[in-house]
């Protein structure tokens, strides 16, 4: 008993000596729950639960918010999974398209047997192959965007996030910028790999160079493809903000990219009276994205998130690089490739604006 009291006394002496000795920054020995907390009657002794580290006055800035979002994004496995899927799916899709074409070109149309002297492919086809899976990957980067927001809400991290940064629009902007940057890098890497894959498979077949007026195609396929995927990530952030639940956000995304186009194309078959629905369908994000990727060149790459199909039966048609399903019906809205780009941009702006308003105004329970 008395020994214990002595020890406590000695300890106190040691402490006061230390605090009297120097006030420079020091680290206390590892403090755990068992160490008695500083006595409140200690007369304002420095330390305790406060910081011993000297640092510039903490401040909430956009740059700090950005760094926090980078830390958050890179500390979650789901981010890596989606980015890797995105960066791998693009070259895989490209390789499939290019391989199929190389195979078709090696067939002799007359006999149906393989020849050693394949016909050359148009170079535009290689670029088409490289960006072939961009419409498919819209779903992947879209989910990346949705989840950037919804993981906060589903894990109630949103409370600590908004307590550290109560300016919600700044919070969402920082998050969006980081998500967009990640989506862009992953898409660009994926598309460069896709280009390499298409080149490797098609160069043995031989390629005819790009025609005049097609020189935008390489840029649109690679850089434009990456920007389309990035735009979809931002659209996803908007949807995530509107729904604030992963299930809801992902479903909204699937509805927009898969269900709505299918439903509209089916409905438009119901009769001529509904043909205008095709005009509406062309304004949906996936068709807009596909149209942008053509860069105005008639490339036979029919790929969308709904169907990635290669019409094996009409090898000749493909060789002549004609669009199989050119709409005969006149009077339908046919946006040019850059108009489609503007339509997609409008989608992104509107979805993001609504998402930001909802995030700003909704209660966090």
């Amino acid at each position, binding site marked *: 008993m008395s020994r214990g009291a002595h020890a406590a006394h000695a300890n106190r002496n040691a402490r006061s000596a230390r605090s009297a000795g120097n006030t420079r920054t020091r680290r206390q020995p590892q403090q*755990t*729950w068992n160490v008695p907390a*500083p006595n*409140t009657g200690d007369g304002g002794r420095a330390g305790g*639960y406060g910081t011993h580290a000297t640092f510039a006055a903490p401040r909430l800035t956009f740059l*700090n918010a950005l760094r*926090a979002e980078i830390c958050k994004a890179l500390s979650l496995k789901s981010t890596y999974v989606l980015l890797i899927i995105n960066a791998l799916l693009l070259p895989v899709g490209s390789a499939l398209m290019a391989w199929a074409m190389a195979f078709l070109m090696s067939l002799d149309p007359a006999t149906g047997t393989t020849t050693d002297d394949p016909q050359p492919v148009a170079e535009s086809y290689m670029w088409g192959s490289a960006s072939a899976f961009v419409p498919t990957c819209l779903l992947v980067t879209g989910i990346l965007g949705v989840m950037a927001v919804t993981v906060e809400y589903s894990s109630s991290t949103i409370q*600590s996030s908004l307590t*550290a940064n109560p300016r919600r629009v700044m919070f969402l902007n920082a998050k969006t910028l980081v998500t967009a940057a990640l989506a862009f890098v992953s898409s660009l890497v994926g598309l460069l790999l896709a280009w390499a894959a298409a080149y490797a498979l098609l160069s043995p077949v031989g390629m005819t160079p790009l025609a005049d007026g097609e020189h935008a195609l390489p840029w649109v396929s690679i850089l434009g493809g990456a920007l389309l995927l990035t735009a979809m990530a931002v659209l996803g952030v908007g949807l995530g903000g509107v729904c604030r639940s992963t299930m809801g956000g992902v479903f909204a995304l699937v509805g927009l990219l898969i269900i709505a186009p299918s439903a509209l194309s089916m409905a438009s078959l119901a009769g001529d009276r509904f043909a205008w629905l095709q005009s509406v369908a062309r304004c949906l994000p996936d068709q807009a994205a596909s149209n942008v990727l053509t860069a105005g060149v008639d490339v036979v790459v029919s790929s969308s998130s709904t169907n990635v199909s290669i019409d094996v039966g009409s090898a000749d048609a493909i060789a002549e690089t004609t669009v199989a399903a050119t709409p005969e019906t006149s009077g339908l809205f046919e946006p040019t490739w850059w108009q489609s780009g503007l339509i997609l941009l409008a989608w992104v702006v509107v979805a993001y604006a609504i998402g930001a308003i909802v995030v700003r105004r909704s209660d966090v329970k």
Partner: protein
Amino acid sequence: MIEIEGLSKRFGAKPVLDHVSFTAEDGKVTGFLGPNGAGKSTTMRAALGLIAPDSGRALIDGRPFAEHRAPLRTVGAVLDAKSAHKGRSAYAHLLSIALTNGIPKRRVDEVMDLTGIAAVKTRKAGAFSLGMSQRLSIAAALLGDPHNLVLDEPINGLDPEGVKWVRDLCRYYAAQGRAVLLSSHLMSEVALTADNLVIIGQGRILETTTVADFVAEHSTRSLRVITPEPEKLRAIFAHAPEVTVTPITRETGDPQEGAAFRITGADLGAAACVFAAAQLVTYLFVQEHASLEEAYMTLTHTSAEYLGRSMSGATQSAQPAQSKEVQQ
């Protein structure tokens, strides 16, 4: 200082807060007490701008929370024990919060040391027990060495050491002239820690007082007597208007014979002498404190929203019999 001014909020048709006003002063621990669903969490969230009130406002150090330049320096908040993403490591969780306000990495290590979770730095927050998650939440609250602490049931899930640690933490912050708002549904816990007391029930402030006043008002002493001679007992105090003798039901473990009474207003020593002089036979003669918990239960019972049904079915009384759970 946290000033809550006339906050009202409805969730759908259900009023959750009804003109809630109180102040958590600097240098004081303010206990915020109420049954489950009384509106404690909603009030705290409204104070931090997480919930927009229908009317009224909340000011932190004189300004709405969102207007502060360094939110983490202004308020440290524990709103939920499980506040981190399951798949994120404890360290990354704290670092991301710290970065928002430009707080350096070494402060993250420091708060992990303080709350005793340094050993599980890289473990995923999803693998944490409730107590460990609570410590992680507290660590996040301490990151900015804040001027105000808002703690929503911070002791849930903590072991006794942790409970004591939180108590000391609150006292320490208050002693430094900072404001601490501590919510709990346990009177005993708040009575030990807080200076001021705000009691809420069904979204309305029922009482704003200090712990000392609440104790003085509600912890009246009384004597419990079991005697085979009830008439004699009544006769003794028949002419003393300041003393009341009320028959009560016997408690478990009491002698089975005789009648049980509670005597208030009489001093223990004086009563003993009078009983001896009157040769009153007693089987049981003890002094009791009315429990704070009991006083609090009486106050909030009518406004408690989620009442469990009594297990035995026999006890219809609103006040539980364990009045000896006194903690002073």
